[in-house]
């Protein structure tokens, strides 16, 4: 038991190095100050103790009322030190929040009490010790933790959301954590520097099996990673064979959900979605928005909140009952990948993919629209 306990936790990412530096710098400075204060208190307690231990009442002591110089010194010096920590910490936070532009995006969806990880190539891993409850979703196999695989020495961006309540995706070995807030995307990024297997925890209290919403992240060499992506080896019963990239799956959904009915290039009834990602778009009623993930998300979930200028608000909204969080990610991945001239062509004899409906989606019936899981 004691042997299992490492004295220092693993440092497995670039950020871990920075975070450890600041933690230990703060600990050293505050520790030294604290010990110095203790030493002075201890010294005073010994030097000025009363000779007779039970004695109380009058004793001739000097009447010292204070010293402004000293007080000013111990006001300003700590403040300067604290502000230095603030500056350093802000710098690390800045690094932690801004992924390199070329980092591949891995999507993570939190749900009570599991994490669903989607790779750009379409691979899928489910993390969570109680995945047994979700045996059907993960392919009918039994109890397992789920292992997410990452390549060493290559930055990856994590785009995070939640289906129900607030979770927190934390990997102590990477010294990094961020809340998965339902209803929007937040992102972070990792630059793993050391191969090995590390813990993933849910750090935000999320209900009964909060402590079972855990798993592992396995950092492997680039070659092994590619083999894993290709399905040559598996970490568990998740889907990690290639059945189409995320964008490709999104394209299928784009047709299946009848988005193509309006968002086509011929008789367009809605904006053409080619190359709109991260561009600034004017909206009806004045103002502009940047078409980032959160805007794309809102435009699918609540299409009429911010309508593109020049178009009518005719799009029905797609709540979680029509498009799950995971499918939403696929559609967004597809929209992000759309290049000029790549919108599928809608022809009169176009046949919907298997399982798709050919009728346009029905208008919402209830005033509440989406209710989310109750």
């Amino acid at each position, binding site marked *: 038991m004691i042997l299992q306990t490492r004295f220092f936790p693993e440092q497995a990412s670039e950020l871990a190095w920075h975070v450890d530096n600041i933690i230990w710098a703060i600990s050293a400075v505050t520790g030294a100050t604290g010990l110095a204060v203790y030493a002075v208190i201890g010294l*005073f307690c010994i030097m000025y103790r009363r000779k007779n231990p039970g004695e*109380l009442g009058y004793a001739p002591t000097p009447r010292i009322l204070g010293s402004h110089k000293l007080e000013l010194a111990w006001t300003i010096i700590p403040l300067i030190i604290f502000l230095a920590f603030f500056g350093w910490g802000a710098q690390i936070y800045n690094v932690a929040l801004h992924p390199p532009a070329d980092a591949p995006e891995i999507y993570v969806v939190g749900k009570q009490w599991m994490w669903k990880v989607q790779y750009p190539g379409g691979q899928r891993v489910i993390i969570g010790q109680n995945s047994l409850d979700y045996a059907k979703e993960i392919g009918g196999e039994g109890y397992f933790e789920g292992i997410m695989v990452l390549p060493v020495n290559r930055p990856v961006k994590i785009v995070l959301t939640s289906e129900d309540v607030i979770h*927190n995706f934390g990997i102590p070995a990477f010294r990094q*954590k961020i809340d998965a*807030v339902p209803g929007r995307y937040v992102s972070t990024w990792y630059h793993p520097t050391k191969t090995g297997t590390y813990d993933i925890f849910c750090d935000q209290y999320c209900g009964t099996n909060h402590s079972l919403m855990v798993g592992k992240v396995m950092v492997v060499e680039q070659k092994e990673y590619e083999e894993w992506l290709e399905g040559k080896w598996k970490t568990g019963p998740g889907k990690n064979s290639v059945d189409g990239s995320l964008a490709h799956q999104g394209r299928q959904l784009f047709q299946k959900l009848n988005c193509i009915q309006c968002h086509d290039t011929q008789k367009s009834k809605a904006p053409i979605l080619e190359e709109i990602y991260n561009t600034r778009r004017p909206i009806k009623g004045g103002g502009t928005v940047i078409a980032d993930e959160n805007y794309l998300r809102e435009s699918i979930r609540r299409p009429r909140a911010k309508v593109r200028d020049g178009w009518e608000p005719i799009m029905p909204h797609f709540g979680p009952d029509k498009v799950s969080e995971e499918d939403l990610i696929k559609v967004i991945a597809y929209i992000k990948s759309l290049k000029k001239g790549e919108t599928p062509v809608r022809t009169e004899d176009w046949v919907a993919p298997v399982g798709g409906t050919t009728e346009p989606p029905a208008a919402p019936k209830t005033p509440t629209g989406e209710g989310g899981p109750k």
Partner: protein
Amino acid sequence: MSTATKHEAHASNEHPAHSAHVSYLKDGWSIWSWLFTVDHKRIGIMYLVMLTIFFGVGGALAGLVRTNLLSPTGLIMDNDTYNKTFTAHGVVMLFLFLIPSIPGVMGNFFVPIMIGAKDMAFPKLNIASWYVWMVGASFAVFALLTGGIDTGWTLYPPYSSRSSHSNVVPGVFGVFITGFSGIMTGLNIIVTMHRMRAPGMTWGRLPLFCWAMYATSLIQLLATPVLAIALTLLMVETGSNALGMPIGIFDPALDGDPLLFQHLFWFYSHPAVYIMILPAMGMVSELLTCFSRKNIFGYTAVAWSSVGIAIVGFLVWAHHMFVAGISYYAALLFSLLSMFVAVPSAIKIFNWTATLYRGAISFQAPMIFALGFLVLFTVGGLTGIPLATLGSDLHLHDTYFVVAHFHFVMVGGMVLGYLGALHYWWPKMFGVMYSDFWSRIGAIMICVGYVTTFTPQFWLGYHGMPRRYPNYPAEFQYLNVLSTAGYSIQAAAFLLIHTYLIASFFTGKKAGPNPWGATGLEWVAESPPITHNFEATPKVVCGPYEYSLNMTQTGEKADVR
């Protein structure tokens, strides 16, 4: 003194006992004379009784939590029960013990005496605050007993409003009501301090405990209503979910923002930490000066740092939300401001240390508690810095590091201050002395127990063990067992303390009016004080800590009597 004469005549009409000047404990024996009292001292004692019970309950719940954590898969409870247990521990300890403790007991009992007043400004409001608190506590206890709450004391929606099927509404309603009690007490203390001070009791002559209580009351007045409204909105949302017509005030599925609740909640709950720690800080200033026979080093700095903490404490709450998805710029702003709140605490620590210089230090139990406070609060305060720094909070947020940090502040700081106050003023409150030997043993045991319980948790947190986990990786077991061992030392120490304190009623020797040879106005009064505190309104002639001159605030000799 024509008014005084008129008053004496007037008062003796209503209280026949008053002219006999019996102690407040003997002024009426029936249960009604307690339940319908408007005497601030009796109300303080009523708070003391209830707080002791709740502290015992909260402590026992902590014991269940720690016992369960002995095993990596949960030793005695299933996950759901564990969640309800730590929530109950949090709710009971925070809202039913820590927040009302020193303001309710010592604030009520001693602030009027220390400023030379006969009673609080609004005695009926004062007893009402106790009843309101009891009603709130009943709701909370009812919610905890009939199924419990499994949301954690932070009650974050959408979990609490949509996902949790436990007793959120009655529990939240209870907390909501206890808030009003805090507002009443705070209002009473502020008005009393402004309007009821004895002649000569200038702001520069107020004991530092009163300054701390003033700052505390300021926070209670101005922060608690924001919690009340946050809880109201949460109750509406939770209730609407139960009715099947969900409204998403904080629920993103219905276009609400969960972070709004966190903002409103922490707007109160961060300053609430200062509600807990400031009175303890004030207490330590009293104890250190008394038992080292010295003036406080830098009265003005210590007094104003309390007010400074109260004000700056309102500006830092979002450091609880650095990884919660708030704006990058807001995170920078709040981290910067959080650094400023550390400064007044640092000033206090250094000034207290300097107070000991060239003193004549004796180590009675209250002094051991005060020194323990210095040591443990320093740890708690300094470990707050990595949590307020953005870069390190990325890793430490929501881990056991946070748990250890705030327990060092609240338990190591606040509870030690409370116990120090209780031991210091016990002879004044009840007129009896407890065992000197056993009290010293108890104080040392508590400090040792705290360190053993919570130091391992820093290490657990640094290794990444998240809060609120009944199941954890096996390599963390060794540190968890150590922590639980520390808990048992604490539990033994608390049993010991309550045993000798209760025993002092029967076997303790009678205490004189000034058993410590202290200088405050409360030591001029009898032990226990008479119903109107003083035979005649005292005249204050000097500052509160003239130990080197051996002079009480009324100018008498401050000898052991």
